[in-house]
């Protein structure tokens, strides 16, 4: 969401974001309390977390951090280094579910099947059950996604912050919370306390998961309040209620000093600088492909929020895409790259473009996508079976999906170790026909490194204006 500030484009996904911001002006951070999936998961995890101190700690002194994070991210975006995805709660939730939680779940179910499978007489029942499960819940084939561990650890770290205080992340770090908080400054949904009924019992102050209630139990911070209504439901005297108050709106203070602001700007500038000077080896970068319809690299990195939606849908078809680690540099962490030894770009599929929420992958219609080159295949003649050992093989050619095959054979002589001459069909790549889908690499029967590989050679990125 904040990501959109970093990109210089208007996309359809910005409309709900705009509506949300508009409503926030009046209602406050209702998103954090009622919609945010990360917030819900933090609340859920809270059920299992035992804090040393029973009373919720007052963490107001850390509130500034989230504004600092937001400032730094915006500053970075202005220098055209988009890193908002790292902490965006929506992207973060989706990323964690796609790369770790769902795969763990699927593997565990599959493990149970593995335990039961050897029992004679149970197999047909298990197969029916599996058939039923795979119709709505389980993947047909388990395709593992890389980076599940670091992505999960970041998520786990966020959940564990609740050890310090309830919703510590939402209170003090979440940049989206900060942005919404700023918009809530003048909200008209007012928390009112009937002073006569209030017994100063402190229950509301302790219950408030977001630490928004001031020491007098009457005042609250409009910037912090997430409309969870803990205070209203927990008040033994029913003294707390929420009402719209249009006249005489009292704004709340944003806990962000000038000094902290300048520190955050400095941090942002420095981080952006460090990321900009990152040396990305031409070899590691050039050997990787991006999804079909991806914007030119710099724009792509600006727009991609690492939500892993493309990776998720890709595992249901060809399974080409994987989140990167450092292959595309620090700036490219967790952005989708091709991993053709594990999977390929399915010829009749354009799902990645369909699901991309930011337009980093442009939706190409199928005929266009089928002609869009994401890379080019090259034979490794030291490994390819006909080239290396003089035996015919044609798995790559068989799978090549272009209507006019991009892999062809030319017959030639092969001299064996015993100096005998054999006739062999040598495979070649017709570069003008190859689209770099990588199915040849996936299906190559050579163990380990395939006899054919893909590089980004000749890749076509989607340009918005074509002259």
């Amino acid at each position, binding site marked *: 969401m904040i990501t959109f500030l970093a990109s210089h484009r208007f996309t359809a996904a910005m409309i709900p974001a705009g509506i949300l911001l508009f409503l926030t002006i009046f209602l406050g951070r209702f998103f954090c309390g009622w919609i945010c999936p990360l917030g819900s998961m933090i609340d859920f995890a809270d059920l299992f977390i035992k804090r040393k101190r029973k009373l919720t700690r007052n963490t107001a002194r850390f509130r500034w951090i989230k504004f600092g994070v937001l400032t730094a991210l915006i500053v970075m975006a202005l220098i055209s280094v988009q890193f908002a995805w790292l902490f965006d709660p929506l992207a973060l939730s989706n990323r964690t579910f796609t790369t770790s939680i769902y795969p763990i779940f699927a593997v565990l179910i599959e493990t149970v099947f593995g335990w039961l499978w050897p029992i004679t007489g149970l197999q047909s029942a298990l197969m029916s059950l599996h058939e039923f499960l795979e119709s709505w819940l389980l993947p047909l084939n388990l395709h593992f996604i890389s980076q599940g561990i670091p992505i999960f650890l970041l998520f786990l770290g966020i959940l564990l912050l609740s050890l310090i205080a309830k919703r510590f992340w939402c209170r003090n770090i979440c940049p989206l919370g900060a942005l919404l908080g700023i918009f809530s400054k003048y909200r008209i949904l007012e928390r009112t306390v009937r002073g006569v009924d209030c017994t100063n019992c402190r229950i509301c102050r302790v219950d408030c998961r977001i630490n928004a209630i001031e020491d007098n139990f009457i005042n609250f911070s409009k910037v912090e309040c997430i409309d969870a209504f803990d205070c209203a439901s927990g008040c033994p005297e029913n003294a707390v209620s929420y009402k719209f108050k249009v006249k005489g709106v009292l704004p709340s203070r944003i806990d962000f000093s000038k000094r902290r602001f300048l520190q955050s700007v400095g941090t942002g500038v420095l981080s952006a600088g460090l990321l900009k000077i990152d040396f990305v080896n031409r070899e590691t970068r050039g050997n990787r492909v991006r999804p079909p319809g991806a914007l030119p690299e710099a724009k792509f990195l600006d727009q991609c929020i690492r939500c892993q939606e493309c990776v998720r849908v890709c595992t249901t078809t060809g399974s080409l895409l994987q989140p990167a680690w450092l292959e595309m540099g620090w700036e490219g962490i967790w952005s989708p790259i091709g991993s053709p030894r594990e999977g390929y770009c399915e*010829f009749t599929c354009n799902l990645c473009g369909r699901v991309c929420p930011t337009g980093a992958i442009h939706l190409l219609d199928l005929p266009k996508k089928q002609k869009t080159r994401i890379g080019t295949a090259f034979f490794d003649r030291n490994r390819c079976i006909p080239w290396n050992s003089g035996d015919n093989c044609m*798995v790559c050619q068989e799978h090549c999906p272009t209507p006019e095959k991009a892999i062809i054979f030319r017959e030639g002589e092969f001299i064996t170790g015993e100096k005998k001459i054999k006739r062999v069909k040598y495979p070649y790549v017709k570069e003008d026909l190859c689209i770099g889908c990588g199915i040849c690499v996936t299906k190559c029967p050579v163990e380990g490194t395939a006899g054919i590989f893909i590089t980004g050679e000749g890749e076509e990125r989607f340009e918005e204006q074509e002259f």
Partner: protein
Amino acid sequence: MAMLSRRKFLSASSKIGLLALLPPIAPPRTQFRLFDRAYKPTPDLFVAKTGAPAELVRRVVRGLGGMEKFVHKEDVVVLKPNMSWDRTPAQGANTNPEVVAEVVRLCLKAGAKKVRVFDRTCNEARRSYEHSGIAEAAKKAGADVYYVYKRNYVRVKIPNGERLHSWRINKDVLNADVLINLPTAKNHSISKITLGIKNLMGYLGDDRGKIHRHFSQKIVDIASILRPQLTILDATRLLLRNGPQGGNLDDVRWIYTVVGGTDMVAVDAYGASLFGLDPETLGFLEEAYKRGLGEIDLKKIRIHKV
């Protein structure tokens, strides 16, 4: 919670240990049903030309003596169409769905308990099942259509194998009473064309890519143990170039022909002639003939036009 004492732990674990001594509920099956049914192929081919695909199939099966000859009451039948590719019926990469549906109907009419249709696809399974049109057509005709499950394979010995001595094969095929092979006629780079014998690869587990080296010998090794009682070749259209998955409509020629026979090798030999190829020049057919799996001499194959 009550503490678990050492005594309790030992007694409980020994009880659980005793369970391991129980005999298995049923002894594991060593012999599979597919190998039980007598198999006597004859080089008689029934060829139907010009007509709607379903009608062609009916004519061929009538010529063969009716489906009842192969499918008995309460039989479990497995059909092997080619549905490997994420391609539409018009592109000619997969078996014509109308042919598959008609065979399903004939099997059920003959009294089959179950007709099963599945394939280990080359492209993603859901896409191939749907886009080939076969999943829908076969389901409508009354077949069980499902995806293969990775655990449902068993290693089978290949007694007379030259290159392969065992391979993992889908259990549902091995447990079937009748196996009907429904290949489609396509161009293929190494074997030149792909027909019935190659179609059997859809039942193999493991890394099938490994088969493609010394292809003729290996595929015939497989054919020596997986022997369909009936092969019906869908040559309603030929994929002439860029096989086995095509994609270009110009490469497809419609000839509205269906060929049926009990000798899979003879069916393939006849199929080769449809492409204007001499069966004896095709490595896998020559190999199959050499091992006595079937007839490839077109003069010795008896062709009945139906």
